[in-house]
């Protein structure tokens, strides 16, 4: 949960500086993956393993303590079930949602919105960043406009999108796409601009043409930051989805929550929140897997 909202807020709340969040959460990703370690591999390895173990314990300990405090608040502190249902009640509600198919249906609908919205935003953000990052004219035309729109609160667009697209799927998909465009654009643009000029010079003297430079030097060089942008984009996408569904929808996870809220089914609210956090973890996992594959060359850079 924390991972999701933290990241989503970093992206959305945002409206400020995506750049500042760049590289967020990447350090642990490459830790302990250094097969090419040059200096005293065994000692380094064990030190890293110890650290990993420690951090894993803290990772497990936090949620466990939270769960304990929660259970205590209910059983010892007699928190009313309408405000804070017991963990067991939440699990029960979750099972019911699964059994009666409500969760599955909502999940499919919401996931579809997110996937389409993210696709739309990634394509739009990437195209804009390529045009802006690779050509001077593009930068002059596009960059100021993007930064102008970026400062607009995303959710404020919902009313106008409803006017344009109605209350159907399009408005939600476009809203998610809009929100996703910015972290993708800003990170890919910065990645393209940040490619080492020495490598560009080397590429030139090795005989790479403009297209070869883009394909073999600029895009691979910008890839790490693009993936950072993608991770932020996924966080933002769930946040926007929920907001859009809670304000204006008759289906999906957000609708499930707002419906439960009006019926005072606190256990259902908690159950859906739990699903959200799992989705956040899942989307993070997907990006990490992509990173591991696309940035395999970088794991070897730990010791440099």
């Amino acid at each position: 949960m924390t991972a999701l909202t933290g990241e989503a807020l970093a992206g959305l709340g945002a409206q400020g500086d995506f750049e500042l969040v760049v590289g967020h959460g990447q350090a642990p990703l490459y830790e302990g993956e250094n097969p090419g370690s040059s200096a005293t591999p065994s000692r380094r390895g064990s030190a890293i393993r110890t650290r990993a173990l420690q951090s894993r314990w803290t990772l497990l300990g936090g949620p466990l303590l939270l769960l304990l405090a929660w259970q205590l608040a209910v059983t010892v502190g007699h928190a009313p079930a309408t405000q804070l249902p017991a963990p067991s009640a939440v699990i029960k509600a979750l099972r019911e949602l699964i059994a009666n198919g409500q969760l599955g249906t909502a999940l499919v609908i919401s996931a579809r919105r997110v996937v389409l919205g993210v696709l739309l935003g990634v394509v739009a953000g990437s195209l804009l960043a390529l045009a802006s990052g690779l050509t001077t004219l593009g930068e002059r035309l596009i960059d100021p406009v993007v930064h102008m729109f970026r400062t607009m609160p995303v959710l404020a667009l919902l009313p106008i999108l409803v006017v344009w697209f109605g209350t159907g799927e399009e408005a939600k998909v476009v809203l998610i796409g809009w929100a996703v465009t910015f972290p993708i654009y800003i990170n890919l643009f910065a990645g393209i601009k940040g490619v080492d000029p020495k490598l560009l010079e080397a590429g030139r003297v090795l005989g790479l043409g403009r297209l070869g430079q883009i394909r073999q030097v600029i895009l691979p060089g910008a890839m790490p930051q693009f993936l950072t942008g993608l991770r932020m984009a996924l966080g933002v996408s769930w946040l926007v989805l929920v907001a859009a569904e809670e304000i204006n929808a008759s289906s999906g996870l957000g609708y499930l929550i707002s419906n439960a809220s009006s019926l005072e089914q606190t256990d259902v609210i908690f159950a859906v929140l739990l699903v959200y956090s799992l989705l956040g973890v899942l989307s993070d996992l997907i990006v990490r897997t992509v990173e591991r594959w696309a940035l395999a060359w970088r794991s070897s850079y730990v010791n440099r």
Partner: protein
Amino acid sequence: MAIELREPLVEAAPRTARAARSRGEVVVRVRGYGRAFAGRTVLAGVDVDLHQGELVALLGASGSGKSTLLRALSGQDAGADGHVSVPRERAVAFQDHRLLPWKRVWRNVLVGLPRGAQKRDALRALEEVGIAARADAWPGTLSGGEAQRVALARAFIREPRLLLLDEPFGALDALTRLRMHELLRQLCARHRPATLLVTHDVDEAVSLADRILVVRDGHISLDHRTTGDEREGAEALVLRTRLLEELGVYAPEALNNT
């Protein structure tokens, strides 16, 4: 500045057997080359020819313009005066290896080559510099010496007529540097490019080069053809002292004090 890409000039002078052995055809011709940055003149009126098969060391203090000249020969500098004619087949190795970190070693060797270039070509080039075993490694896992070997393989696979080396051994430890000197000597003897080695290391210049140029005060102040005897021993020391003087290391005051 006019950079002319063409077949190298053939020396007009008749080639005696001795001349053919010691100096090959002219590969690079520089006439009246000059370069200023923001009004400050770095180089002016530089005339120099480089011949096939010779290993020329270009010595100079920091900021003397030696790297500027190298950049001009690599075709990377458009804002200069004078006439520079260089062959199209040229290769550059830098102080930092500048391998693309996202390409495995063998793919780095092939960067920029025509489509037909195969892995086995890269392997042959890597074999020649003694590092074929690391062909599938990521550049990030190589040591400094290994990375420079790959950079040399990447340069020599292009069969350059002109090889430009910009302090390629500057960042290596002393032992590795000596090994790399030996390797470079072998590679140059086999492929016989005209080689311009930019360095600030006088000993490197003395032990490696057939010819030593010193850049000082914006022009080439010394053009010395090294004899075999000058590579080591007493004569090498004499040459070394002369070069250091030329580079202004021994200022008159410093000499008076000793």
